[in-house]
């Protein structure tokens, strides 16, 4: 008889990568110990774990700051990005005139404009948020616009034949058609919002009560407190993964009944 746990798809999905991760940490610790690598070059996982526990107060505060900027930027990106897409599909003219500027915003390296934004915007949180929005908004705009245009042409003909107004077309046809694309954009955008928040913070170098995880990494680097650096890095990664998982869950929740991406196909 096979173990029922191993037959459980969900359990395997979680357990298998965790097992690999565990092996990796084990190997890491073994290499550090066998070669006597000092912690200021490469600390072992145990050392990092210790830093996690001991510095938890500082780390958690940093996490809250970074998370605040990330979520603010993501929220604003979703709102503004969706609004821009809705505007773009209203007329070809608007899209043709404005879309290149959305691209311009996307291709300008955030590191290069962050100093300017930090000079212009007084409040640190908002300065960082603006930087993060600039890079997080593009996938929302481009995906949602694509989605709003990806309407079954025959369905559109049918709407026209029954004399549906623009609003009816938008609400009953374009928006539902765009949802899968929109959620795809959200998945990319959460990651970019986090990256934007961290990069902006590196550039701003905000200390004191405003210090986020990026500043902790900078500071720990100066002090050669490498375990704390790793702990902060770990938290950033963990935040990114959690946000991504949240988006996947949300998109599955909304699309599970009809869209191919969220269907479980039994062969």
């Amino acid at each position, binding site marked *: 008889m096979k173990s029922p746990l191993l037959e459980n798809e969900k359990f395997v999905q979680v357990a298998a990568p965790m097992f690999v991760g565990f092996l990796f940490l084990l190997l890491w610790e073994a290499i550090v110990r066998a070669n006597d690598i000092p912690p200021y070059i490469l600390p072992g996982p145990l050392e990092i774990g210790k830093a996690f526990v001991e510095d938890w107060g500082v780390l958690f505060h940093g996490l809250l700051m970074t998370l605040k900027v990330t979520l603010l930027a993501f929220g604003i990106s979703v709102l503004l990005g969706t609004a821009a897409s809705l505007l773009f599909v209203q007329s070809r003219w608007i899209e043709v005139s404005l879309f290149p500027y959305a691209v311009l915003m996307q291709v300008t390296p955030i590191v290069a404009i962050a100093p300017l934004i930090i000079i212009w915007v007084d409040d640190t949180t908002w300065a960082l948020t603006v930087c993060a929005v600039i890079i997080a908004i593009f996938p929302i705009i481009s995906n949602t616009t694509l989605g709003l245009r990806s309407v079954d042409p025959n369905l559109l003909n049918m709407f026209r*034949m029954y*004399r549906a107004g623009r609003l009816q077309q938008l609400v*009953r046809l374009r928006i539902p058609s765009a949802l899968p694309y929109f959620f795809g954009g959200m998945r990319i955008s959460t990651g970019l919002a986090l990256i934007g928040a961290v990069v902006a913070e590196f550039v701003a170098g905000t200390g004191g009560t405003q210090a986020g995880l990026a500043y902790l990494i900078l500071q720990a680097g100066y002090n050669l407190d490498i375990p704390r650096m790793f702990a902060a890095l770990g938290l950033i990664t963990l935040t990114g993964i959690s946000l991504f998982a949240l988006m996947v869950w949300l998109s599955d929740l909304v699309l599970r009944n009809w869209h191919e991406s969220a269907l479980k196909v039994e062969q």
Partner: protein
Amino acid sequence: MTNAKATRPEVVVPMTTEEETRPAGGTPAVGRPVVSVRDVDKVYGNGTVALKDVDLTVKEGEFISLLGPSGCGKSTLLRLMAGLGEVSAGKVNWWEQDYSVVGEKGRKLAFVFQNATLMPWARVRKNVRLPLDLNRDKGDEAEQRIDQALEMVGLSKFGDAYPRELSGGMQMRVSIARAMVTGPNLLLMDEPFGALDEMTRNKLNDDLLRLWKDNGWTVVFVTHSVYEAVYLSNRVVVMAARPGRVIDEVPIEAPYPRGQEFRVSTEFAGYCRRVSEALEVASQQGEEAAS
């Protein structure tokens, strides 16, 4: 709108057109024109001549099939009849007036596309009610009509299903129910059963004939199957390509209701041969034009 009302008494005026009135086998009320296409050309922006000098009158109660090789413009013609797209020359009339009368009581039009064209995010019932929603029809009467439409296509139990949970044939039936829900007078169908297997197709053909009879529809049906065209229609219009045009019309005078016996009869075989020959000529003419 008032104009439409004023012209309605025309119904009682007996039909005296220049056209030869064909005795349509077994169909009693073949009456006034529902759609008439007069000298219509359709040239697309890229210069393709999709239709050239097409003349066709569809009369009340008729079941007409448009048959032809691919590229003969049969779908284009059907779309023009649905008011989708503009003619390049000539005129299309609905109930002897322009497109603005379409949608009035007794002058409703429905279109069934090649694939079911359902909204995948909406349940079957919601899909069927779409035309009513767009028209802001609510209340018990609307619900009753949805129930009725679902019952007629035999999908009463599937109202809460999502389209993807249904087979291709069932999806097509949902599409037909959606077309029926407004109580159309003219039903335009663009190769609706082309993607289905033969068993399902035959079944849906029978269903369609029954619904046509029960509801007093006028049907224009695009197909590339000779058998389907002969089985269903009282008139088969054969078209040729390059440029798309009508080259022949074959009246099918076999009485309705038609069933399995008709499918295997020598009469059926005779009509199929006659239509196939016309189609052969159409294909040759198309090829000559291409070379």
